[in-house]
């Protein structure tokens, strides 16, 4: 092993607390929730890496405790450009195109999307614009500080295990929408469907209980930080009324309790469009164990992930690398839109008419009507605009790689990327900010066939064909980075 002091890799970390000091609207679910306090701070954490100063490659990952990077609707979304501009305003040293923002997908983070719930924020509650300012400043400050903190460093990586994410799509022998009067999105599959139903057949997709871990070390071979990549969104307490980073707060607390407060933790959500910390079946056995252990599920997840970090740590400590191939490729790839068929458009028109009639009678259908209108907008514009662009980042560090995408990417796609990657270990990172709308579901072929929330036309701008393009392009870029 090379000595860390002479390392060609340079690494810096920084973090910012972006928890608002006033009530906010929480940025998820189909109804407005005004926060009633804080249940663990919301943070942004930046990891800057570069090689071969001053002209070498670089990356700045910024992990954000947020549901996603949405400031304005659809093509008007300017979250990423605002953040990059804020960095550029602070320094000219950073190539802002090499900044990657990615979300933990917390459903209890402040809302930054203007007009999410149709109405303005209630009096005394921070507006989406104000929340956005807090995030943009926090992200920019963390990115700049991490960059300026860079020091010669070592890195290592490994694979641990922790049961956190579960597939959330219950599939039935019969058409679930036929017999339950369920929402129009339902087919043979229901998200969070009951599994003690005699018609329950199987869980639609796979689960990934591996944890990808990337450790950083200073010149004294002391642990400075760890990237933790989990195939699960941060949504254990997603229905809560308090601002929180969800289980990432407990993960950070537990790792720092064991390894010191100085240790930085960069949270990454792997491909997890069909995953959730909520177990659909066998809940009674899990809940009993929690009770016996005297922990909340978030604390239990913190324990499991910290255990995984500890399990891998000896091997990671024994395999620190300081001079390894380091490459960062950025590529705009074009993805075919999921086309709305004539039949789907007709169904949606009919649904929208019903919702509008109910709304006129006083029902608050705003959050249901908007996706309908979006489907019809897509139907009208899809011929003129049949593709969208995704900014793909692929980073090679030694024998491992990071590969990003902008979606809630169903696990099947992540598995395909990992299986075909030339890297020994590949960290897939979903919900990476893009110029434009970030974060719709990207369903697998079987999810589209089975429908259900996340698999229906309402929930995805891009379908399985686009997912296959992401897989092919990502694998292609990975191979190029290995061939260079």
């Amino acid at each position, binding site marked *: 092993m090379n000595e860390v002091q002479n390392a060609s890799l340079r690494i810096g970390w920084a973090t910012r607390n972006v928890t608002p000091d006033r009530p906010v609207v929480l940025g998820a679910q189909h109804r407005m929730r005004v926060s009633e306090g804080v249940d663990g701070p919301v943070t942004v954490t930046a990891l800057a890496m570069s090689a071969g100063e001053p002209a070498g490659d670089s990356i700045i990952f910024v992990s954000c405790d947020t549901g996603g990077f949405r400031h304005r609707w659809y093509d008007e979304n300017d979250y990423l450009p605002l953040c990059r501009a804020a960095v550029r305003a602070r320094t000219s040293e950073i190539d802002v195109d090499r900044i990657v923002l990615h979300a933990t997908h917390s459903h209890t983070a402040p809302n930054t999307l203007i007009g999410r719930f149709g109405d303005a924020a209630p009096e005394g509650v921070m507006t989406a614009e104000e929340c956005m300012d807090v995030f943009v400043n926090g992200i920019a400050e963390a990115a700049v500080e991490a960059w300026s903190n860079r020091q010669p460093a070592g890195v290592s990586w*490994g*694979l641990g*295990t922790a*049961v956190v994410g579960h*597939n959330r799509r219950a599939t039935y022998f019969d058409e679930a929408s036929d017999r339950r009067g369920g929402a129009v999105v339902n087919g043979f599959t229901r998200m969070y469907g009951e*599994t*003690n*139903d*005699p018609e*329950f*057949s*199987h*869980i639609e*997709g*796979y*689960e990934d*209980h*591996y944890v*990808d871990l990337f450790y950083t070390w200073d010149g004294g071979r002391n642990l400075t930080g760890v990237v933790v990549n989990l195939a699960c969104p941060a949504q254990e307490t997603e229905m809560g009324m308090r601002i929180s980073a969800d289980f990432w707060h407990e993960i950070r607390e537990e790792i720092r309790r064991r390894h010191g407060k100085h240790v930085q933790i960069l949270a990454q959500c792997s491909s997890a469009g069909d995953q959730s910390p909520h177990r*659909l*079946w*066998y809940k*009674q*056995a*899990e809940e*009993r*164990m929690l009770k*016996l*252990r005297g922990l909340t599920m978030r604390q239990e997840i913190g324990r*499991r992930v910290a255990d995984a970090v500890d399990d*891998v740590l000896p*091997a990671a400590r*024994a*395999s620190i690398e300081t001079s390894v191939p380091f490459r960062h490729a950025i590529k705009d790839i074009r993805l075919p839109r999921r086309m709305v068929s004539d039949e789907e458009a007709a169904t949606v028109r009919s649904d929208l008419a019903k919702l509008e009639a109910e709304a006129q009678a006083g029902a608050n259908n705003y959050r249901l009507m908007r996706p309908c209108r979006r489907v019809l907008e897509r139907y009208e514009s899809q011929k003129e605009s049949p593709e969208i662009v995704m900014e793909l980042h692929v980073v090679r560090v030694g024998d491992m790689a990071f590969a990003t995408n902008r979606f809630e990417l169903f696990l*099947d796609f*992540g*598995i*395909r990327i*990992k*299986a*075909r990657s030339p*890297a*020994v*270990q590949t960290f897939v990172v979903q919900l990476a900010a893009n110029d434009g709308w970030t974060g719709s579901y990207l369903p*697998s*072929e*079987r999810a589209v066939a089975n429908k259900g929330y996340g698999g229906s036309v309402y929930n995805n701008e891009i379908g399985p064909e686009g997912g296959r393009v992401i897989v092919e392009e990502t694998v292609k870029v990975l191979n190029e980075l290995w061939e260079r």
Partner: protein
Amino acid sequence: MGIKAGGGLFRIGWASVDVTPTEPVCLWGQLYARVSEGVISPITATALAMESEDGQSSVLISCDFVSVPEVIQKAVREELARTAPGLDAEGVVLSATHTHTSVARTGFGGPGSALRGETETRDLAEYYGVDLDAMDPAGYNRWAAGRIAEAARRAWESRAPGGIGFGLGYATIGHNRRVSFYSGTTRMYGGVNDPDFSHPEGGTYTGVGALFTWDAGRKLTGVVVNVACPSQILEHEFKIAADFWHDAREELRDRLGEDVHVLAQCGPAGDQSPGRESIQADWKAHERMVRLSGRTACRETGVRIAEAVSAVLPLAEKEIDWTPRFRRSCETVNLSRRNITAPDLAEAAAQAEQHRAEYEHLRDELAANPRLREDPRWYVPITRAYCRWRWQSSVQKRFEAQQASVTVPAEIHVIRIGEAAIATNPFEFYLDFGLQIMARSKAAQTFVVQLAGEGTYLPSARAVAGGSYGATPASTPVGPEGGRELVNYTVEKINSFWDDPAGGA
């Protein structure tokens, strides 16, 4: 339930026995012969005897076998009926860890022979189409059955007041081994790095069920460990091995005590397998971690199981049940046969003919040149052709059988122990069915146990749609329809023990 030591109402006994053959045997688990060339780890059987206050009893026996031949099950029960007074032999449940480097079988086809109506054969040539220098299987069956019955008797006679506790841990061990492609077809071990790879066909389950027993002095005496993965890391070896369960037992005894018994159960895992490159997207990273740990793959798996169980122990210990409700049932349930169609039959016949021709060619070649027998493992190609011929030919037998009966009998055991349930079936039971049972069960925790008997694959509907080994007519006497019947029966039986605690045998 309580935290004080036991009041003597529930009685528990344990015993284990080594059933490693002392001479070369033919290892079962692949569709070709492997004459054992040594021993990696011993083959064992472990028995847990339980008797409730009201005299209901059961003996669970786990064997490091591919499956449990009906002849062994029958012989063990008959012997216990003679030597273990008070024990209802019907409550004796034998299950297999599904190691592919073990012995014990009945008819030609190995697992599933009884379901195909085959009887025990004695001559290895009948299994493999050539003479092999190895112990005759019927002889091993007799010897092993005697030793297993003796262990069960010892477990029964040693039963003493005790308590039970249980819990759920996690260990990433099994992976879905059925690889689906964009074409809609599936191939077992099909290759996830294929550009046409779409997804693992089914799910995976990383839960580890643990049911502990303590004596009246609160000393841990044993643990039942349920993992939804067959014991098949070493499945292509030519040496006898209990596979990862040997390592799991050693690791557990290191942590829990040398005299602690470990009863291994294979959960619903007809479509599961320990990881390998062709099915596991993270294989390279996983393999690197095993290498960095300095352990073998079996040892790494053993460590994971032991750590999961050890983490559950202090929690289970908080709720030791000294007087658990105990109910059990044993019923033979008739399940719908998977119907063999004329095209199925034609396809199987064509394949059988191809393998028969290959076998006969190799047989003639051996007859013309006997010195070929001096080559190491000379018998592999010819036995592969012969086994496949016979395997495909079994479809014809099933086609004939379905004219007489549209159902297949399967022995199902359901046991309530306190707030936990154990539900067995004789199949290589696809995970989808296991999840259905666990999801619908009223028990706080349900241990689904496959291969309690000599079944073969019981595929899910999506597996039949995908095809490939493990879902083809040749490997599945019972299909998804029968699987659903089995699930519904099992769920109703389990739940009846909760709805009517006095019910059961």
